[in-house]
């Protein structure tokens, strides 16, 4: 199902303060039905605080917020009935088995057992947990717990699924399995809101995203739009011998001029932003700039973030 024009979550000037501290500062965004919408940003940016307000778990301090056409201030229970929430840290019930976790969660939604049982079986199958149905939760691997948490979030057949860092801490295999499952959910018409500090995750999963930094939204758009707007098509990464590097400034004492639209200096390398990376590399060779190694790659959201904030997403 392609994204529609219907707006499922609408925020204007949305603000969250803890005492004097502002965790989310007047952010504006609209999430459309059936899209995967991302919040990309480093730790502490305010992603979780925003998710918790959307999930009606955390009261809005200021601003406008509508979720599935309802007001979290007055209709929290009605909204929650139609949401699936995957929190940043798993909070499964360690005193119940895998299957009981799903069944009991269904009961919190007032779903009768006769409906919950087949639904739980189906979700365990979908998340590849059927063999573990009768097991305790504690011995499960991190990836399995995450899958169970997602299965639990789906027990009420939610229209909107909120996932806070769904793959943080998982190994690559477990991440790819999750991405594939989330993609399938989206295919079935679910709306996803995903936070992450992995740019590859945002690029893979999100139709549109906002980049958050220090409680504010610093950019918004599709991954391609953001890259086009804030980066070039390609990036040339150069590693320069330390001996040479010490005597040169951020633009290589002018020797990089004209080779790239922009040069970014990182602790271990230079990033040259150019639409044609190979051509820039030829230029570097032509000017006899000594290099250890060179790599041409496509620009990513990481480059967008670096451009906007001067910092990397994940330290």
């Amino acid at each position, binding site marked *: 199902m392609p994204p529609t024009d219907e*707006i499922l979550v609408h925020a204007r000037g949305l603000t969250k303060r803890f005492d004097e501290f502002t965790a989310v500062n007047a952010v504006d965004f609209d999430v459309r039905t059936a899209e995967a919408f991302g919040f990309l940003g480093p730790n502490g940016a305010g992603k979780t605080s925003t998710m918790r307000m959307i999930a009606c778990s955390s009261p809005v301090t200021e601003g406008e917020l509508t979720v*599935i056409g309802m007001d979290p201030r007055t209709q929290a229970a009605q909204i929650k009935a*139609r949401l699936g929430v995957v929190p940043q840290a798993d909070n499964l*019930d*360690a005193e*119940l088995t895998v299957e009981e976790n799903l069944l009991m969660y269904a*009961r919190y*939604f007032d779903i009768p057992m006769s409906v919950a049982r087949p639904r739980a079986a189906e979700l365990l199958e979908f998340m590849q947990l059927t063999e573990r149905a009768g097991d305790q939760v504690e011995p499960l691997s991190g990836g399995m717990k995450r899958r169970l948490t997602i299965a639990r979030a789906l027990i009420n057949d939610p229209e909107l699924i909120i996932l806070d860092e769904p793959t943080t801490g998982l190994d690559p295999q477990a991440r790819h399995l999750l991405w594939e499952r989330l993609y399938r959910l989206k295919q079935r018409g679910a709306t996803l809101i995903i936070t992450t500090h992995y740019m590859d995750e945002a690029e893979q999963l999100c139709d549109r995203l906002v980049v958050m930094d220090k409680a504010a939204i610093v950019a918004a758009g599709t991954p391609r739009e953001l890259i086009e707007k804030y980066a070039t098509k390609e990036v040339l990464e150069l590693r320069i011998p330390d001996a040479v590097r010490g005597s040169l400034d951020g633009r290589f004492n002018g020797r990089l001029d004209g080779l790239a639209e922009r040069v970014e200096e990182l602790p271990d390398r230079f990033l040259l932003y150019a639409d044609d990376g190979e051509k820039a590399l030829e230029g570097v060779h032509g000017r006899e700039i000594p290099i250890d190694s060179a790599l041409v790659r496509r620009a990513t959201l990481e480059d967008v973030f670096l451009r906007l904030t001067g910092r990397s997403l994940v330290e």
Partner: protein
Amino acid sequence: MAVIAGSRPGPASVASGLAGAIAGAARILQRNLLVYRRTWRGSLFGSFLTPLLYLTAMGIGLSQLMARGGSDLLGGVPYLDFLGPGILASSCMQTASFESTYPIMGKISWRKNYEAILATPIEVHHLLVGELSWIAFRLTTMATVFMIVLTLFGIPRSPLALLAIPAAVLTGLAFSAPIIAFAATRHNDSGFAALFRFIINPLFLFSGTFFPVSQLPDAVEWVAAATPLYHGVVLVRGSVLDKMPSTWPLHVAYLVAFIAVTGYIAYRLLRRRLVK
């Protein structure tokens, strides 16, 4: 682009009002019963062993030392008969207190069960009423087993003794509500050891379980009489021995009011802790 008003009906009905409140609390009770299904044997066996040990060791042992046929100070009953109902009330206090400390703390912060549950239509008052209902259930089973043991010792005087069960549950809840309030303010469990050492255990010793509070110096007697355990012991002992004082409605009213006030405080503190 329009902000949509819910396009499809919610998968779950959201009951409101009193029916919703009861249904929500019932889910929390159901969750604890699901866990209890795996542990009930050990728990019931404990309820059986506690009175047995006390009545055998202290009751039979000590009562040999005391005048048979009862003393005037004990209201004219043998020591064993005096002790049995006292142990019932104070055991309910201890179990209720324990159930309101570590398990509640775990659900607030260690395992974050409440965070998970509050992402559903369940609300904070459901959590509190549900946990109190669960504790009331635990206390009912415990008091029932206790009554069976007391009966084996021939202590109850009449069928009226069955009223000791609700009285003992009320006594326990009068500890649960304030202790849940306390647990809602804690960020680690170090306060709980102090709670048991400085409050629960002294109450166990001085609130009329082992000897009448009238034996205490006046000042201490007044302190003892202000605690819920004292009122609970009066009601439980009155029921079991068929010697209910005419002031019983005051004792009941004290316990009910105590539960209501501390329960409301627990609600406010839990909300403050869980909804940020």
